[in-house]
Structures are given as C-alpha cells and as structure tokens.
C-alpha cells in the first residue's frame, strides 16, 4: 500500500511551483515574447529608434536564398551530430558498463568535455585543425591530403560536426550509462542461459529496454544541435566558407549580434522556435510509440 500525504491548503501546491514557474517565465517565456515582438520591428543596433513594420522581416527572410541554404545545412549538421553523438556515446557507455579495472577514471575522463564551454571547445578544434597552424592538420597535409576547412565546405562541415559531437558525447554517455546500469542483470542472465550471444543480448534485450533513455536523448540532442551549437560554429568556422556551416541558429546569432539586424534575427528565432516545437511534437507523436517503458 502506498503512503499518501494529504495537504489541505489549496495554495500550497501553487506556492511550491512558484520558483520553477518564475524561472521558466523569466528565462524562457519573457525572452520568447520579446523576440516575437521584436520580429515585427525595425531597430538600429543601439536600440535608439524602432518602428513597427509588420511582416516585412519575415518577407525579407523568406526571399533570401541563403536562408534556405541554411535550412539545408542545418538538416545535414543536425542529423550528423545527433546520430554520431548518440551512437558513439552508446558504444562508450556499453564498454564502461563492463567490469573494468579503472572504470571510474574512464568515466570521469568521458564526462570532462561536457564542462568545456562551447566557445573554448570551438577554439580548441579550430587550432588543432587550422590548415597551416594546426598540430593535427599538419600531418594530414604532409601525407598529401589537401586539408583546407577555410575553403572546402565539406572539410569545414566535418570539423564543426566533430567539435559538436565531441562536446555532446559526455552528456549522452552519462545518461546511457545510467540507463544501462538500471537494466536488471537477471534479464540479461536469462538471455545468456537461453544461449543468446553478447550481440544478440544487446540488440534484443538491452537496446529495447534502453529505449526511454534513447528517446529522451534524441529529443535533447535535437534541441542541442538546433540551439546550442552556435558558439562552436562561431569559433571553428564563423559560418564559412561561403556559408557552408551557417546553420539556422548560427544565422540568428550572426545577423543579430554580428550584423546588428535585430529584427531579422528575431524573426529567424521565431521561425527556428516553430521548427523545433514541430520537430519535438513529431518525435513524441511517432517515435515515442516505439518506446517501451
């Protein structure tokens, strides 16, 4: 029988919710409302003058071929980052779940990159792979490989994907590891007794039982690539070459903060928000059906 406590006050539950609600309002709803409002304004960079211009920012945005290119770039970038960071993290977590001698050290090292700020991570990768200064790029060039992310769009994309994946693996690793450890050993042992090999056990027992974690991480990772990667892109490629790594969120940042065009930037962030909300809804509607809780 479950224990249940009954609170008589009608006010108390709301009071307990207040801190969280305030945080959500101040850090999410308030800026979102402001962005929404700003997307209908034309303002100078300093905010000294502003005028209401209706949907002009949106019209200008959808007339830009660069905007559609950024959408395509985002699709490629987010698919690669989500896929790679999830699968690599799962591989690492599965290894760390085994009875290793130094598994604590291994786990700690795996979690480290998460503590690195995106911009710092970006600068790190920028210098490692700078075509002429980078300590990892020089061997590539010596081997005769023409590594040049400054001009080659694919190289630049590989570079930002590596940086973004590297940063996200830690987070995914943590959750996967926790998920793996919560799978009852008895189920796996039963599979083993029935003669299933390690691969079979993983794919038919562990992976389905892990699906709630995987689904949660998929949602979080999509949000991560859509919103949190502009720092990395800014430091690694600055959206270049020729806009090859300009994703939607980087364009929001570049046009607004670097370009001082806050109206267009706000319009872009409203569109971006709509896309992510739609994506998340789709994930919950269709992908969640396959999840076994």
């Amino acid at each position, binding site marked *: 029988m479950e224990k249940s406590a009954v609170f008589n006050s009608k006010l108390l539950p709301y009071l307990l919710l207040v801190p969280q609600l305030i945080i959500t309002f101040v850090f999410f709803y308030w800026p979102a409302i402001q962005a929404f409002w700003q997307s209908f304004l034309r303002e100078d*960079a300093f*905010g000294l003058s502003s005028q209401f211009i209706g949907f002009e920012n949106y019209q200008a945005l959808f007339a830009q071929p660069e905007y559609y290119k950024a959408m395509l770039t985002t699709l490629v970038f987010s698919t690669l980052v989500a896929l790679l960071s999830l699968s690599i993290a799962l591989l690492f977590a599965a290894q760390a779940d085994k009875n290793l001698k130094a598994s604590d050290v291994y786990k700690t090292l795996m979690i480290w990159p998460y503590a690195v700020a995106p911009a710092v991570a970006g600068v790190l990768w920028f210098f490692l792979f700078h075509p*002429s200064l980078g300590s990892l790029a020089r061997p590539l060039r010596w081997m005769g490989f023409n590594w040049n992310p400054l001009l080659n769009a694919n190289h630049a994309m590989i570079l930002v994907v590596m940086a973004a994946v590297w940063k996200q693996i830690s987070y995914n690793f943590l959750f996967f590891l926790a998920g793996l450890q919560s799978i009852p050993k008895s189920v796996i042992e039963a599979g083993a007794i029935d003669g299933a090999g390690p691969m079979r056990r993983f794919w038919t027992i562990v992976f389905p039982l892990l699906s709630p974690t995987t689904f949660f991480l998929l949602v979080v990772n999509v949000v991560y690539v859509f919103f949190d990667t502009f720092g990395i892109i800014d430091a690694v490629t600055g959206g270049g070459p020729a806009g090859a790594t300009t994703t939607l969120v980087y364009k929001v940042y570049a046009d607004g903060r670097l370009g*001082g065009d806050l109206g267009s930037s706000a319009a872009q962030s409203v569109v971006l928000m709509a896309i992510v909300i739609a994506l998340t809804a789709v994930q919950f509607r269709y992908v969640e059906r396959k999840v076994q809780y």
Partner: protein
Amino acid sequence: MLRHFGLATTLAATLAFASPAHAVTELQWWHAMTGGNNDIVNKLAEEFNASQSEYKVIPSFKGGYADTMNAGIAAFRAGNAPHIIQVFEVGTATMMSATGAIKPVYQLMKEAGEPFDPKAYLPAITGYYSTSKGEMLSFPFNSSSMVMWINKDELKKAGVAEIPKTWPEVFAAAKKLKAAGHNTCGFSNAWATWAHIEQFSAWHNVPIGTKANGLDGFDTVLTFNTPLHVKHLQNLIDLQKDKTYDYGGRANASEGRFASGECAIFLTSSGYYATAKGTAKFDFTSAPMPYYPDVPGAPQNSIIGGASLWVMGGKKPEEYKGVAKFFAFLSDTNRQAKLHQESGYLPITKAAYEKTVKDGFYEKNPTLQTPLKELTNKEPTENSRGLRFGNMVQMRDVWAEEMEAALAGQKTAKEALDAAVARGNAILRSFEKTAK
C-alpha cells in the same frame, strides 16, 4: 596564532584598500588588441594611472574588432556600456549614426576644458573620423593601412631579386617561392575583403560604391563588380588551385603563417609590426601593396584602417573629465612618437610625425614609413578618401562568403562579385532605413 595572523592580514588589506580619502574614478576601456599591441595598451593604461591619482583607466580585452564592437553595443542596450571603446574603421558609420549613444570627442574635450586643437592631428587620419564640418567624433588610436609583408630571406632563397611591386610580379614571385619549397603558400593575406575589395579599389582609383564610397550619404550603392575586380579575383582563383595563392580566412588569424615562414609574401595591416618584430625569426620588411600596371593612375593612395576610440554617452561629467585627460595624455608628442615606433600604427599628430622624421627613425626602419607613403602617395580622390558603409561588419562577412565561394570553385569571379554587390546593397538599404 595562525588565525590571528590571518585576521591581521585581512585587516591590513581592508585598511590598505580604504586608505585613499576620495575614491578613484574608474574608466573602463574595452579594446581588441592582441599580441604585442595588447602589451602596449596595458602599458599605456599603467603609465596614465601612475601619472595622476584621480582616475584609473582599466583596459579589458574583448576579443576581435567585431566582437569588441558588438560587446559595446550589447552593453549599451543593457545600460552598462564602457566609457571608452575601440571600434575598427568599418564600424565608423554605425557609431556615427548612433547619436545619443556616443559622446563626440570634440564636445568632450571642450566641456572638460582640456587643450585640444583639431589642427594638430594629421588630417589624412582625423578626416576619417570627423563630420563633414570637421568636428572630430572619435579619437584615432591605432591607424594603419594595408601593406605587403616580405620575408626577405625566403625571397632571396627562391631567387627573387627584387621585392615585387605589381600584381603580375607578385604572382611570378609566388610561383618561384612555390618552386623553392613553399608548397602550401606562395602568397596570402589576412582581412580578405579589406585587401582585395576595399584597399584594392582605392589603390586603383576605382569606386567601391557611389557617393564617394558612402562618405557623402547613406544612399550609396556598391559598384565593385567591374572588369578590373573580376580580373583580379579570377587571378586569385587560378592561383588558389595549386596554392600559389592560399586564402587565409576573413580576419587576421592567419597572420601567424607569415611569422612561421610558411607564407613569404603576406598582405595585412601595418599594425602587424609589433607582433612580427616579436615572433618572426628572419629578416622582414614591408612594401606598398601591389597594383596592376595597366590601370591608369595606379597606384593611387590607400585608405586608413585600424581603429579609433569612441566615448559612450550617458556617463557622469566627472568621468568624462577623466576620459578627456586620458586623450590629452595619448596626444602627447613624445608618447605618440614612441607609440608609433613600437607598434607600427601611424602617428596621429603632426608633431609626432615630424619628431620621428627628425630623429632619423625612418632611415633605420623604412618598414614603418610604408603605410604613410601609401596613404599620402597621391592627393585622395572620391574613390580613395575612405569609405563609410552602414552595417559594414555584416557586409564584410557577406563579401567574404562570396569570395570564398569563388575561390572554392562554386561560382565564377563575376557571379561572386555580382552576388556580393547585390547582397551588400540589400544590407545598405536596410541600414539606410534605420539611420535617418
């Protein structure tokens, strides 16, 4: 015992901090200087702080030029702008149009009662930062121009007898350098659009845009997709294929390729001097930018680069007094001359320039005279007086994007320049609407 000792030191420290009878007025100075020039900025602030006791200038490095400017704008919107902010020359139009956000320097000096004679400054430099009436809006701090840095040792090794003067000579020298082992870089440059669009146009006396490159009004239209520009970009595209030319990115991160010896011919700011002096382990010099000899009148004169110090609006009169004192301190002839000779940036006062000449400094260091010679090569024309385009920071990125597309072989030179002009014009029109 130990605890008492701790208490005593805390007490002593508290007393030490509290001891001045009146509080020192702190003046925030945001800047974008890296390498050798960062040291110079810190030293200037230290010297000023030591020279008097009322004010304390606190320099903070805020990243690259664009980052610094944007940090300042964001801080202004949030109501905590610094007192002094270093803004690069392409941010000038944006700052000028922000009446209310800035405190014009001529006003500041007048109100503070500091001695200030606009005529003491070099007009080629202050003209850039003044209104059409000649009122100085910002204080020129580090003015530079683009020069061609030459690794003399490597050129000699490659059998290039003379420093190239024209673009065809540069291309030929780069091919020789490549043959002599510079596989990855015959020549290169930092600040891609500054080199190949802005300075290139002025140096060849062709307009970047109408209305004297925007100096005469915000209703300017870009025009740099001429056959000359197309020809130049096409040359770069051809040479990029085998790395006789190797693109070095939009800002100045690639300057290290000169100091490391990788690129023996490298176009970048004359302000690179302090860093080159500190890091290059070979005999180097600077030469004027190359030109195409078949263009009539070329070379014309180069335009100013670098940055000026803007004073932000809405501060206390007491603080403005301190800023004015600091500017007077910077204008001091000996200090200016020293600053010029150490950093490679141009002297901003006539007296400092004359002193440097009189001291015979240029005979020993011709490197530092190159930008001055470029700037004063000929009487400036409509095309070479300077440029003033709104949202220039964003526009440079757009231009660079198109150049990159051309160099990567995705677009032809003509397509890329047409797109750069069209997209740039869209940005200009949007700026024109906000700045009236």
